């Protein structure tokens, strides 16, 4: 084994491995979602849809993969992500610039504010653009999928992480997942944050 490999200590719960694009979208039972069926449902809803759920329940993950699936069907997809209200103008501009029948993905719909949301929907209707948004509650845009966190989902997501067979059952055990799930209250992102610390603590103990 290379010396470099010995000193490299990958924490599978690092941002790099648990980012939205890395994980496979699943439902609350941990079952992988049928993206093709969701794309069909999106079309049946008039080309727009909302992914609704609490913090850290997989909305951004689902949006990322769904956008890929839509793009694979040769429909233009524009992706935007709101970090704060200052991004409103950029998002509105994206809707105006998108070609007809394109799908504009807006992560964090609520950050647009009431006026921004009204303008965005009006512009989308005016320019024939579909909207795929993530939100914490009903938006007025047809709900495409409701995300919910659970212990089953956490277990399924953890099983996807790199090197799972090497560290699960030793460095991280099922009790750690139970504890993280309780403390995170359904927020998978928070659960990963707790498991990151647990992994580092456990590994420090193993070394000492």
């Amino acid at each position, binding site marked *: 084994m290379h010396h470099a490999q010995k*000193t490299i200590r990958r924490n599978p719960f690092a941002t790099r491995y648990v980012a939205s694009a*890395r994980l496979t979208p699943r439902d609350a039972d941990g079952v992988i979602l049928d993206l093709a069926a969701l794309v069909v449902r999106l079309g049946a809803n008039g080309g727009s849809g909302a992914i609704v759920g609490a913090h850290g329940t997989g909305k951004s993950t689902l949006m990322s993969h769904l956008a890929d699936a839509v793009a694979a069907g040769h429909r233009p997809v524009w992706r935007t992500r709101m970090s704060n209200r200052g991004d409103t103008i950029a998002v509105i501009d994206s809707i105006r610039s998108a070609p007809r029948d394109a799908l504009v993905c807006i992560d964090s719909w609520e950050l647009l504010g009431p006026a921004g949301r009204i303008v965005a929907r009006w512009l989308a209707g005016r320019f024939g653009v579909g909207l795929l948004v993530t939100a914490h509650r009903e938006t007025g845009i047809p709900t495409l999928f409701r995300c919910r966190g659970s212990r089953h989902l956490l277990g399924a997501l953890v099983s996807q992480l790199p090197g799972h067979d090497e560290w699960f059952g030793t460095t991280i055990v099922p009790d750690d997942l139970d504890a993280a799930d309780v403390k995170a209250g359904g927020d998978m992102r928070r659960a990963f944050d707790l498991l990151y610390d647990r992994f580092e603590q456990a590994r420090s103990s193993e070394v000492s």
Partner: protein
Amino acid sequence: MSHADPQLGAGGIGAGSSPPFPRVDVRFSHPGRVYEAGEWVTVEYLIDGLAAERPRAFERSALWYTEGKGEEDLGIHSFERFATSETIDPMVPEGTFAFQLPTSPLSYEGVIVKIRWCIRLRIFFESGRDHVSEHVFTVGRVPPSRFP
């Protein structure tokens, strides 16, 4: 996009259901892959499995990135792109390249922040898909930090 890192195992990161990707073998001038700042790093690579699909572009780079709880940052130290058949053919399926390391940053195994150095080989295919292979090495001999 498929991504293979031999240090993580055969599955790599986020393998999903993409078609089989090429196998990339890499050899560093230091067998232990540990270098000092300012040293020259020589890398030899062999890409297997390109017979089925022709590359339309090839990139090789040396960079550092952060890993941990924060958003990932990266710094490109050296980068080369080959986009014509005349320039690609000598580079694949095997080749050698060298680069000199800067004085910093050193590799660091922190608790919530880690700094890693790696080389990346990225192949772009005619079909539109691409494959990236990442190979980590160590710069400096900073001992790891432990969870307090």
